[in-house]
């Protein structure tokens, strides 16, 4: 008697695959179309950021941080410069703090819009993709007015901001804030409220609260699993303790909540920006810092709430102009650990959806 045997299909997805968001590669083991195992293979975008930092001065490293999570570059600048400021004990001017909050929250909105867009695109929701990107362009325009570039903005300096926003920045910001509710309605109408999209995302890729905590997931992915944790509230940095905002938490634990929680966060970011625009004082945007930055001997860790999760910098200084060791705690690299665990047992197209909802940016994963 012959025994009928089915063979496992090993499929190599990436690094050049339409839905791998950059240069991610995973080896997928398939039984039919059902995924039995996933092996993520990282490192296709590895540039050795941490080692590079050791041969750059403290100021020279700021543009490199732009290339970590390139969808929210002000946040990376912010995390890094605040770490150095913490080490040096620099107090920065009020106006610079407010500007940092405004640009940080704008970056959060832009990053979430890209996440919504690419999640929609991974499900072939073409129009939703271009709608979200259309609105993100306006944020890029605002970056360009202030810093001169649109993606890797390099907008912060140790001790303050690189430039004062020009006159036309404020009306542009105001009209963007006014249009946001309509934008969100559009995204909901064209994508999140769609029956097919709900069918694709709801109850797919369950990440329970326990799993999320054990895997030290952070950011919207964690909050979609019902954990109320946000660095802005848990360990307030900059001037976040002055603003009145909520941390959106959802308990669905599925792909749908992981995506739509980003819509809630956009609403909260708008709230913060409105308060910041209302309260922003005049004055200088740079503190008095020495031309050559030489932090004292010591080590420091500082973390901020990046759009994707907790982004931390650890710096060891030996008193010279260059750091002895710089370590980055990337948010999505750690969030990505859940993919093989959560995606097991789903179909290929669900794996693509789950991966999209993680909002992984390979610049940050591979450093």
């Amino acid at each position, binding site marked *: 008697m012959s025994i009928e045997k089915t063979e496992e*299909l090993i499929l190599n997805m990436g690094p050049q695959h*339409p839905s791998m968001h950059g240069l991610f590669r995973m080896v997928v083991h398939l039984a039919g*179309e059902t995924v039995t195992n996933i092996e993520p293979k990282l490192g296709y975008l590895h540039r050795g950021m941490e080692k590079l930092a050791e041969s750059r001065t403290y100021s020279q490293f700021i543009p490199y941080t732009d290339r970590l999570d390139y969808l929210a570059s002000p946040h990376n600048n912010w995390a890094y410069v605040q770490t150095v400021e913490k080490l040096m004990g620099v107090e920065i001017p009020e106006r610079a703090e407010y500007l940092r909050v405004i640009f940080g929250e704008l970056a959060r909105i832009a990053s979430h819009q890209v996440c919504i867009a690419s999640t929609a695109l991974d499900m072939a929701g*073409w129009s939703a993709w271009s709608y979200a990107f259309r609105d993100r362009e306006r944020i890029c325009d605002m970056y360009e007015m202030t810093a001169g570039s649109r993606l890797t903005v390099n907008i912060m300096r140790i001790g303050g901001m690189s430039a004062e926003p020009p006159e036309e920045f404020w009306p542009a910001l105001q009209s963007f804030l006014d249009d946001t509710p309509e934008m969100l309605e559009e995204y909901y109408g064209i994508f999140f409220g769609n029956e097919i999209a709900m069918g694709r995302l709801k109850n797919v890729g369950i990440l329970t609260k326990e799993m999320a905590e054990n895997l030290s997931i952070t950011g919207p992915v964690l909050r979609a699993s019902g954990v109320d944790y946000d660095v802005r509230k848990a360990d307030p940095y900059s001037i976040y303790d002055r603003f009145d905002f909520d941390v959106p938490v959802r308990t669905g634990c599925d792909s749908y909540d992981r995506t739509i929680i980003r819509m809630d966060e956009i609403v909260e970011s708008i709230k913060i920006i409105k308060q910041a625009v209302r309260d922003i004082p005049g004055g200088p945007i740079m503190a008095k810092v020495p031309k050559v930055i030489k932090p004292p001997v010591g080590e420091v860790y500082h973390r901020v709430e990046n759009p994707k999760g907790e982004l931390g910098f650890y710096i060891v200084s030996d008193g010279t102009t260059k750091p002895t060791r710089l370590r980055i705690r990337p948010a999505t690299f750690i969030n990505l650990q859940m993919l093989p665990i959560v995606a097991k047992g789903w*179909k290929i197209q*669900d794996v693509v959806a789950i991966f999209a909802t993680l909002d992984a940016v390979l610049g940050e994963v591979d450093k």
Partner: protein
Amino acid sequence: METLNYLLETLNNLFLIIADAIRGLFADPQSVWANLTMNVINFIIVVIIVVLAALILILLERKVAGWTSQRPGPNRLGPRGWFQTIADALKLMGKEDVTPAGADKLIFKIAPMIIFCLPMMTLAVIPYGKDMAPINIDLGILYFVAISSISTLCFLMAGWGSNNKYSLLGGMRAVAQMISYEIPLLFSLLGVVMITQSFNLGVIVEAQGTIPFIVLQPLAFVIFMIAGLAELNRAPFDLVEADQEVVAGPFTEYTGLRWGLFFLGEYGNMTAMSALAATVFLGGWQGPAFLPGYVWFFMKVGVMIFMMMWVRWTFPRIRIDHLMHLAWKVLLPLSIVNILLTGLGIYIYRFVMGG
């Protein structure tokens, strides 16, 4: 008024007059040679329709895509980008024809050719106007569905022959999906067949002189549209060529003109399915007399095609298990209910009319 009516009549029967004139060139207008010549001419016309449709539809699709996603679409080549398709076709012709090393060469090469033939075979039975079906056969609907379902085989051939894992997955998806959706597709057409008591597409159009069947069979029309989209692998049912999952499915390994043939076949099949929908549900060439019948027909086809494109660029892709549930648990029972209701309706109608 007289002259206007005469002009309209002439325009309406323009192609029939030309056909009669060609037949008149032969000594015996009904001889074998005359019939053969007419068939060859008809065939050439159908080929022209398919190629022209593809040429227009590829541009239209990109324009509709631009329109739905708020961007201009192609607008550089020629006036408003109208020459874009020609440029694309020339580019495809210039590409190297690659056959993968491990491919099943024969199957790999004939799959695109077969799929390109299908729309020509199906479009040949469509009545473009009064008495204007290139081939008038009595089992038109059955023939149409039978021929169009061969495309399943082409997708599987391409998927298997390419020796590529993505292609194989896509080919397998094609078989599962298209076989499931053929049943509701054919069942949805049966209501119309029961009313007209004929499989002949010409007779079906003649029967829609007063009201089109979309009014009598709205449920069947909806089922037909959904199943037709699935049968054509159009979004939201484009799991076969889902580029975010299986790259391009069966077409992953194809380049140049072979890939172009798949493309032509896809748009040809789309035209054919829209033509069938226009014929069976929208009244085909029937319409107010101020325009010739074939103009009405192509306008209806255009509306159907636009609907398909609109749906494609708006909706996300459906999940594979939902796809199967929709076919077997929703569309199939609904189409059977539709047949039952149609039968009851016919029975009551006859009873009331005393037939």
